[in-house]
């Protein structure tokens, strides 16, 4: 089943409430995805800095000394902020790739959830409201956020199998549905140099869009192409540094409802997710059409 929520803020005055509103939306979707949850929050960028959100199943052990070790390897100071099983590492933008390589090479227990200028991804196994409290989602602010509650069908219930998936800088994808051609597509993407962390079908969709955007397409064009190349059931909500996209497969049996006001664009698997948003009574509410790309940018 799975539940998706998304909020893309247009009016800066609402940005401080991004986390609070997203947490409230996510809480309504618990029954749709009781086994794990996750969310991507796009916060304020810091000039010349990049962020990596990392996770560990044994955080006390793996995070001890991580900051010092990375500072030493990269030759620059690294900021480290722990949030439960996750931590955000801030490095100079030109050291982001080196930091990623250093973590992969020297810290096998540390998994990279996301990297980019503004994105932070948190995800864990568990009841969605517990996951959102674990990482204090309510207190986060930013320009847009995408959340997911998972009922696993295609791969194991693990932290890495939870959504969102991030396969490119400041990119993320959440998925409700199941893909049927992910294995063959994955082989092709691997051949072209994409790497994968899981056996999950949704990760293949995320990597596919990243691959298309690496070819020079924008998110809207990549989503358009996905209609030709992905087979199966899907409702995707996708984020980039400044973009927010929605697409459903041509059969469109996975539910979706959207709302737009002067202040925001919002997505929910059901209306319940939107019911608590400010000004919802006056919002334009609609069901996204099948095989149609919806895309906002700021």
């Amino acid at each position, binding site marked *: 089943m799975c539940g998706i929520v998304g909020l893309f803020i247009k009016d800066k005055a609402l940005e401080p409430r991004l986390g609070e509103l997203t947490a409230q939306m996510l809480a309504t979707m618990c029954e749709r995805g009781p086994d794990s949850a996750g969310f991507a929050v796009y916060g304020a960028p810091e000039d010349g800095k990049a962020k990596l959100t990392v996770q560990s199943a044994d955080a006390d052990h793996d995070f001890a000394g991580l900051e010092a070790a990375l500072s030493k390897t990269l030759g620059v100071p690294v900021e480290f902020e722990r949030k439960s099983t996750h931590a955000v590492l801030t490095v100079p933008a030109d050291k982001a790739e080196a930091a990623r390589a250093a973590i992969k090479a020297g810290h096998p227990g540390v998994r990279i959830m996301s990297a980019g200028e503004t994105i932070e991804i948190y995800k864990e196994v568990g009841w969605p409201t517990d996951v959102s409290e674990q990482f204090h989602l309510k207190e986060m602010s930013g320009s847009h956020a995408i959340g997911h509650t998972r009922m696993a069908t295609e791969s194991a219930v693990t932290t890495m199998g939870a959504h969102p998936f991030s396969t490119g800088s400041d990119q993320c994808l959440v998925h409700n549905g199941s893909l049927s051609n992910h294995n063959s597509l994955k082989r092709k993407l691997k051949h072209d140099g994409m790497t994968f962390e899981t056996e999950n079908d949704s990760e293949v969709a995320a990597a596919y869009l990243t691959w298309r955007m690496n070819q020079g397409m924008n998110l809207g064009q990549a989503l358009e192409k996905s209609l030709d190349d992905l087979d199966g059931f899907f409702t995707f909500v996708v984020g980039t540094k400044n973009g927010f996209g929605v697409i459903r497969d*041509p059969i*469109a*049996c996975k*539910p979706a*409802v959207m709302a737009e006001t002067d202040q925001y664009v919002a997505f929910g698997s*059901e*209306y319940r997710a939107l019911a608590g948003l400010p000004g919802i009574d006056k919002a334009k*509410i609609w*069901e996204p059409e*099948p095989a149609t790309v919806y895309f906002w940018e700021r």
Partner: protein
Amino acid sequence: MRTIDLAVTPLRELNSELHRQSDGTNEAEWEILNPRGQHAVAVGVDAPIKVAVRGPVGYYGGGMNKKATITIHGSAGPGVAENMMSGSVVVKGDASQYAGATGRGGLLVIEGNAASRCGISMKGIDIVVRGNIGHMSAFMAQSGHLVVLGDAGDALGDSIYEAKLFVRGSVKSLGADCIEKEMRPEHHTQLATLLDKAGIKDVKTSEFKRYGSARKLYNFNIDNADAY
């Protein structure tokens, strides 16, 4: 009038109260506040009562209705009035996918648009949609009427049996075994009655086209294998 606020009263309590009503009930008018997209609001009512739902509902609003007149003052999630037996359900806003699915009787009126699979497998229900309907509507529709004042999406009436479809706007494509049919005088009369029941007075029956079954796929015929 009984007013039940779903912000305070659990949904099961509301539905149990509604199920306690029967033919001779004195509580003929009900108002439901704050549905906030909850599922299964006013499902399984079996009494000639009036129910006004003030706001949007989630899955299966007014499902399995028998005898009641239910008005949803908002939009409806998937499966509104699913398997309705009799009575009526009116949606003032839009309806999500499979509105009126498998309905056996009664009248479903959607004043906004309906999404995909509207009237799928309908078996006697009458559905009137003021706006547009999505793809695969009236799939395997067996009997009853589907009236659409706007446009229909892809594959209208795929594998249809004897339901009658009236569409005023364009039809993106017809499904297997669904064809346009002549509007004979009895169809104009039938359509006028349906429009009247739905409270629609601003359109003429002459603006509609009728669609129905070509009756080629009723029984399996090896020559039709390519169509499956």
